[in-house]
């Protein structure tokens, strides 16, 4: 155990009706709840009640089939302007793609929103690999990972040039290989200078981007040993690049289904799962296996030739970082049947705890003090109720352990996260 004196960075991923695919089938939400202000007010206020640092929005500019699981229906940066207006302290971290945005347009939109929010905005930089997205932006091939990340790195530098200019005489210029910008902005700096920069994506190129630029990282870690190793490696890499000590703040995803007893939590989990159509979890498993899981025998283990086949992270069609940690995780489950694996696989892309507030708080403390995480990006089964339960049942335990704040002390997101003010390069 460490003797760290800082506190958890806690964000919550506000995914539509909730992280469980069947979340919309419970309760009596109207069909159009996701486009009504009330849903977002209730969720944002629950997050603020738990003294969370920020709410987070993932994003893909494409419509996926809303059956069986409706996705997000509002644009995250507009939603950030709304949520910061209905709350007092909490930050909002909005994802936006460097693949399908213009750097100057996005830089000004983010900074303009940060100004209106009183300095409570974060930007999660993502690159887009979904091939259906490109059809909404002129068509053409989705660029390969290396090309996407080369653009992303230059894109971030161009955005920072615009933000730096806003704090100075307004003139900006950046000349990269792929990205070149030159002009003048009439925007001024926000209360925190400029938005906080987050990064998500665990590929080699993603980690390089995080080490160089990010103040916070959303990662996927399924096992503690690998999380500790990756945590230390990223901090070393950032430090070697001259970044301040402690940067970037690393927050793995953590799915929670909370019950007052383990049995109650499992019942709740099973109830959610029983309403998901057959094949949903198999589809999710297929993505990470890079193999059609529907062809697998449900009552037999996954064949070794599928688990052990050689692979190239640059060619893996979906998240490479997720596949890396998944391959560790599956090692302990090689003898389990596909059916049993699916049950543990319920995080659909993040680690999951189905348990009591005490178990959850103890686990978070262990990861925090083991040097595996600076905090977590929480995935909540259903909004707002699951988040209210977290705020009322888990947060007091974390406060008792001295690892979560007892009140908001600051007004900007940079202050809340304990990261330095924005400085132009």
């Amino acid at each position, binding site marked *: 155990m460490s003797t760290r004196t800082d506190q958890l960075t806690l964000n919550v991923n506000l995914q539509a009706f909730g992280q469980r695919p069947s979340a*919309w*089938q419970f309760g009596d939400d*109207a*069909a*159009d709840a996701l*486009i*009504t*202000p009330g849903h*977002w007010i209730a969720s944002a206020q629950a997050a603020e009640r738990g003294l969370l640092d920020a709410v987070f929005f993932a994003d*893909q*500019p*494409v*419509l*996926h*089939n*809303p*059956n*069986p*699981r*409706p*996705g*997000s*229906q*509002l*644009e995250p*940066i*507009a*939603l950030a*302007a*709304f949520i910061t*207006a*209905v709350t007092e302290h909490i930050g909002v971290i909005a994802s936006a793609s460097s693949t*399908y*945005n*213009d750097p*100057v*347009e996005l830089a*000004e*939109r983010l*900074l*303009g*929103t940060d*100004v*209106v*929010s*009183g300095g409570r905005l974060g930007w999660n930089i993502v690159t887009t690999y979904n091939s*259906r997205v490109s*059809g*909404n*932006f*002129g*068509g053409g091939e989705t660029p390969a990972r290396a090309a996407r990340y080369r653009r992303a790195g230059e894109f971030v530098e161009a955005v920072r040039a615009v933000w730096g200019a806003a704090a100075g005489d*307004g003139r900006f210029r950046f000349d990269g290989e792929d990205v070149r910008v030159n*002009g*003048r*902005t*009439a*925007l001024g700096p926000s209360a925190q200078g400029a938005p906080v920069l987050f990064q998500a994506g665990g590929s080699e190129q993603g980690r390089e981007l995080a080490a160089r630029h990010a103040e916070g990282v959303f990662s996927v870690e399924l096992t503690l040993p690998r999380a500790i190793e990756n945590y230390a490696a990223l901090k070393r890499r950032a430090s070697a690049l001259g970044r301040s000590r402690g940067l970037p703040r690393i927050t793995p995803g953590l799915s929670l289904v909370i019950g007052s007893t383990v049995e109650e939590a499992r019942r709740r989990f099973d109830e959610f799962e029983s*309403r998901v*159509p057959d094949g949903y979890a198999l589809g999710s498993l297929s993505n990470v296996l890079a193999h059609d899981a529907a062809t697998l025998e449900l009552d037999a283990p996954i064949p070794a030739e599928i688990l052990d086949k050689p692979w190239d992270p640059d060619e893996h069609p979906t998240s490479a970082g997720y596949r890396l940690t998944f391959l560790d995780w599956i090692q302990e489950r090689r003898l389990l049947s596909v059916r049993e694996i699916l049950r543990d696989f319920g995080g659909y892309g993040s680690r999951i705890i189905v348990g009591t507030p005490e178990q959850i708080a103890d686990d978070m403390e262990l990861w925090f003090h083991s040097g595996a995480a600076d905090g977590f990006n929480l995935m909540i089964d259903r909004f707002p109720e699951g988040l209210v339960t977290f705020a009322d049942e888990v947060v007091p335990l974390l406060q008792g352990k001295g690892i979560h704040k007892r009140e908001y002390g600051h007004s900007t997101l940079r202050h809340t996260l304990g990261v330095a003010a924005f400085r132009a390069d």
Partner: protein
Amino acid sequence: MTSSPPLLLSLSGRLPALLREQHPALIEQLRRVAGTVGAVVIGAKARPLSLDPVAVATALTVRAPGLGLIVACDGVRDSPYNAARRLLSLDHLSDARSGVLFSSAQASAAQTAERIGVIRALWNSWPRRSLRADRERGVYANTEDIRRIDHVGEHYRVDGPLNSPSSRQGEPVSIWLVSSEAELRAAQGLVDLVLVEDEQLIERWREGDPAGRPALATGLDAAEAAVRVRTVGGLDELVALSDALATTDTDADADADADAADRATAPRTLRGSLELPARSVELSGKPLAFGAAL
């Protein structure tokens, strides 16, 4: 029912800067006029940008509830898909009290018309009537209502559908800031309103075919304050964008009756406040995005 046409207010002088900072005295002014003006226009003639129009408008949905909000969109460095999404997001968060002021920057009339057409088609691609949340059958949305737009034009290629369901007012109100005859022609049948300053163009508008002709707004360049608001801390610069929102032959009484019926069930939309007819883009010939419902 209405004795004078609705007003659109565009803020000038130092007011945009105060709006960007969400200055409390200005917000208070806007709260007071929320029930009496048609809408506030945010970001007109704003290059280089000193504020983000959608962010400012979205915050105003909370701080000045009920205010109509029209945001500028000139298409510079922007893509129609991203623009359509955030404009429709503002519309949802404002409870259907938003509109868009399109303008061309350096683009041709044809390109701007294509851009507006794509954005409007996207706004119609996922009809909100498809939202069912049928828990018995486990069907969230009836996918046989959701269509691609499959647009392939001179300047844009966009598949759709948009990932936001359509507005409670059908579509956000669309306005084109028109500055040439070519733009005026291209606006025919495409937008709800044209905003025109040039006297000759206003004359051309009067001569135009009333079928499909957008309503006319004018006064963006007017120096005089057509709406006087009580001065608080010198904030007397609220300048009327339009003191003559001339609408084409509408049956005001029938509209008023329909509005009264509307109001009984839901708060008034901006389209309703401005007495504009319903507007939609026909997509029934386009392919289904996901096939028929389960």
